[in-house]
């Protein structure tokens, strides 16, 4: 459905989107995730033909979109977009929803019926005559969704559709999105910084960083096996340790990290530079006196910092290099952790995700 081939978009010296190639099959749901300012919005605007690429090609349903405004309008009318902060047009709610149909010169009777249906779909029946300027944020977001869907687009683009929304509106919008994808086969591309939402809605996630697609694939793959240190950090890996492979026993890989060595599972070869990524919640803290557990890696060190977050505690330990562990607040209290206390940090070899330095260049997304 959507085929981006080396698309870039620059504004003066600033490159918002760089050399993005992305193929989105018909009927799929793709979530663009990434930190704010990473180019997700620009990418969506390119997909909606609101911007022209400064380089590369964008094929929509096999047709090059680089043609005249007339041709682009015809394609744009097969796409709908819900903006991050949808604005009401200065008319009624019904008028807002009907706008796209009016632009398409749909007969009045049909407009009325489709407008009513679209409002019903987002649970706002009966609001048609209200002034759109009086809507709450959540209602406006739903109206914007109805306004987009009423045109029966083949592709629906959504920029952070539930940012700053309460859970109830979020659930409702996600349900509508899932439904139109399933029942009408609408291809959906949404941007989000919420991994959970990406996982809930999308078959494919594309991680966008600094205008590039760093990695794309199934949510679980991105979550567990980020391809770059940056991706790993965005995916929640708090401990990123630079080192090099010094020893191999089958899959087991010994990595030299400054003063210490750790064991991980990876296919990196001896002498290769790697980044070892460990989630804070995969680290276990044991008092220095206690016996060694089953984990392969045990690092002795001293607590340098304890930060409490609700029912969790984030404990930073200096083991020659700092590592951070996430434990429950209760266990932190029971074990009477305090700064300066000697302690052991343990983790399994399988908890270490190894990124080979050679792989750092972002892969071509599929």
């Amino acid at each position, binding site marked *: 459905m959507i085929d981006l081939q080396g698309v870039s978009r620059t504004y003066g010296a600033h490159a918002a989107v760089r050399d993005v190639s992305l193929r989105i099959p018909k009927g799929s749901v793709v979530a663009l995730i990434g930190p704010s300012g990473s180019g997700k919005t620009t990418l969506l605007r390119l997909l909606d033909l*609101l*911007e*022209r690429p400064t380089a590369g090609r964008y094929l929509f349903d096999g047709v090059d979109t680089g043609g*005249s*405004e007339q041709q682009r309008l015809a394609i744009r009318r097969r796409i709908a977009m819900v903006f991050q902060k949808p604005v009401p047009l200065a008319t009624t709610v019904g008028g807002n929803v009907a706008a796209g149909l009016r632009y398409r010169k749909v007969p009045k009777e049909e407009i009325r019926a489709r407008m009513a249906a679209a409002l019903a779909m987002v649970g706002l029946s009966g609001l048609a005559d209200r002034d759109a300027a009086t809507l709450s944020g959540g209602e406006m977001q739903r109206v914007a969704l109805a306004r987009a869907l009423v045109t029966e687009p083949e592709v629906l683009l959504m920029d952070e559709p539930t940012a700053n929304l309460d859970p109830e509106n979020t659930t409702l919008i996600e349900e509508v999105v899932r439904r139109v994808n399933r029942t009408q086969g609408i291809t959906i591309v949404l941007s989000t910084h919420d991994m959970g939402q990406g996982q809930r809605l999308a078959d494919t996630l594309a991680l966008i960083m600094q205008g590039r697609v760093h990695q794309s694939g199934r949510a679980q793959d991105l979550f567990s096996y980020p391809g770059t240190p940056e991706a790993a950090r965005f995916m929640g890996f708090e401990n990123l340790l630079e080192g090099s492979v010094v020893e191999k026993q089958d899959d087991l890989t010994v990595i030299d990290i400054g003063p210490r060595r750790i064991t991980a599972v990876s296919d990196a070869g001896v002498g290769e530079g790697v980044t070892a990524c460990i989630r804070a919640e995969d680290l276990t803290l044991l008092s220095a006196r206690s016996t060694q557990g089953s984990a392969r890696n045990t690092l002795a060190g001293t607590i340098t910092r304890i930060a409490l977050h609700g029912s969790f505690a984030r404990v930073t330990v200096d083991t020659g290099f700092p590592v951070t562990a996430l434990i429950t607040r209760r266990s932190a209290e029971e074990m009477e952790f305090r700064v300066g206390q000697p302690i052991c940090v343990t983790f399994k070899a399988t908890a270490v995700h190894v990124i080979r330095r050679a792989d750092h260049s972002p892969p071509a997304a599929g």
Partner: protein
Amino acid sequence: MIPMDTTRFVPVAGVAFTLLLLGAWIAGCTGTPSEGTIPLTSPRPMAEGPRGTLLMATTTSLYDTGLLDFLRPDFEKEFNADVRITSQGTGKAMELAKRGDVDILLVHDPAREIAFMDEGYGINHRCFAYNYFIIVGPASDPAVIAGMKPEDAFRKILTEGIKGTAGIAFVSRGDGSGTHAKEQAIWKAAGFNYTVDVQKTGAWYIEAGKGMGETLVMASEKGAYTLTDEGTYLAFKGNLQLTPLIEQGEILRNVYSAITINPDRFPNQNATLANQFITYLLRDTTQQKIASFGKDRYGKGLFSALQGADCVRFGCDCTALAGG
């Protein structure tokens, strides 16, 4: 994002102007109810048949007295025509006439009228009325000119003014009007070169650049002398601290003429009605009306009829138009 397309913009401006013209035209057709004819097309009117339009340019001092609106209705009735009068300064009125924007010109500036005729802009130059300019000033008369010959009075004002005698000032129209032309003629007759000897010779000589009424008000405020037509003076008299000081003198005579604009220079000129209007002005009955005008309001007539011997004496032509 939005395609650059300057080529489509330029025609927009053209279309805009065309629209404006078109709109204005339509406006003209709808904006004038109660008008028998639309002025945009100009069928040549006859006494019978479609109602004609006579466009007249005249000087403010003549129009503002109300004389023309007083004479107009009888003519309009008799000749089945609308007389449209625009009153402008003499200079502007003559300019309009030269451009063919009007059919008839009513002015009071003999020198320029002769030049106008010589250049071939007009036909049928006729005098139809006259009156006298007056010299007014503060009742205290600081230059002591009351009753003098106008030329002598001007010479005295100038001498005292340049000397810097306190309280001596003269306000000139300074606007190229017929009155201003008359003032310059008096300076010349008094032996002065206007641009060298009079203008910019000191604070005493004030060039107002305004209409007669405003010039009178200015003279009154400054306690200065000025030259004025009698009609305007009488109209403003109540608000002025000015007294007529000199009302006699050949040179103060102010003769009003009418000129038909030469129809050969511009097509569609309504010369027929213009000639009819001149003929109407020269009629005895009209002349009586001219002589009587203003008596009810000011207690005296503002204009004198101009016929026969007077006309010859003034070097004017008051003869009836051929075929008129």
